[in-house]
């Protein structure tokens, strides 16, 4: 009975953590990360158990690598985080002009998001 609070907390934490996917192979780093892409319109990312995040139109992005789920882009113009029970700094993952999830920089894992169209225009 005296373990009840612990059980409640553990259940709460596990219920509210964003599910992550381990990568079958590490991100392959993009050699030519010089190309700059500009986000044409605001895009809101929604992932399970995480607060929605809006990427701001006009922010600049560089491709930093590729994973099996798509191309990984990062920016210095705004913070990208997966804000769940814990918080993870992240980059975004796109595939075929859709934003499909987050790449967590520290754990090097993938978080799936609701696929939304995204337009990254090459050039500043």
């Amino acid at each position, binding site marked *: 009975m005296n373990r009840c609070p612990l059980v409640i907390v553990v259940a709460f934490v596990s219920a509210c953590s964003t599910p992550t996917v381990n990568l079958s192979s590490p991100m392959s780093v993009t050699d030519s990360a010089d190309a700059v892409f500009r986000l044409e319109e605001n895009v809101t990312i929604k992932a399970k158990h995480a607060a929605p995040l809006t990427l701001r139109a006009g922010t600049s992005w560089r491709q930093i690598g590729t994973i099996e789920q798509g191309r990984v882009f990062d920016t210095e113009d705004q913070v990208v985080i997966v804000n769940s029970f*814990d*918080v993870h700094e992240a980059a975004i993952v796109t595939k075929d002009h859709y934003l499909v999830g987050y790449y967590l*920089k*520290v*754990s090097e894992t993938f978080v799936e998001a609701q696929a939304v169209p995204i337009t990254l225009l090459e050039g500043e």
Partner: protein
Amino acid sequence: MNANHIKWLPVLLASTLFIGCATGPTYQESTAQMRPLAAENGRIFIYRKTSLGAAVQPEVTVDGEPVGKAKPKGYFYVDLPPGSHEISASTEAERNLKLTLDAGEEKYVRLEVKMGAFVGHVKPVLVDTAVGREEIQKMKYVGSGE
């Protein structure tokens, strides 16, 4: 409760709001004493913007080492080598922020108070540099555990 008690109620309520608030120099006053950032390190500013849940002031750790306390309206900073780091605050549950840091980089982490099952949780959240720079202006330096 008589009328005399009621008269003092607002004063009592107001005083409880400020219990445990930071009392050090303001950000503006403390910047002159701020040590220069070594070229090989990055700097993380950690601050707590509100007095909400002021009684809850957990220790803040970076990579398991204590670096300061989550004092309402207080801030401190830590200089760290480049790489991955984990910032944590725990009450009944531990809340973590996992981030990366480059040499020469400055990052801002806001400590947010969230509802818990029994007591509030203090959650470290990475914020935009522009937001952090603006919000920290009103905070008071509470030192770090370095």
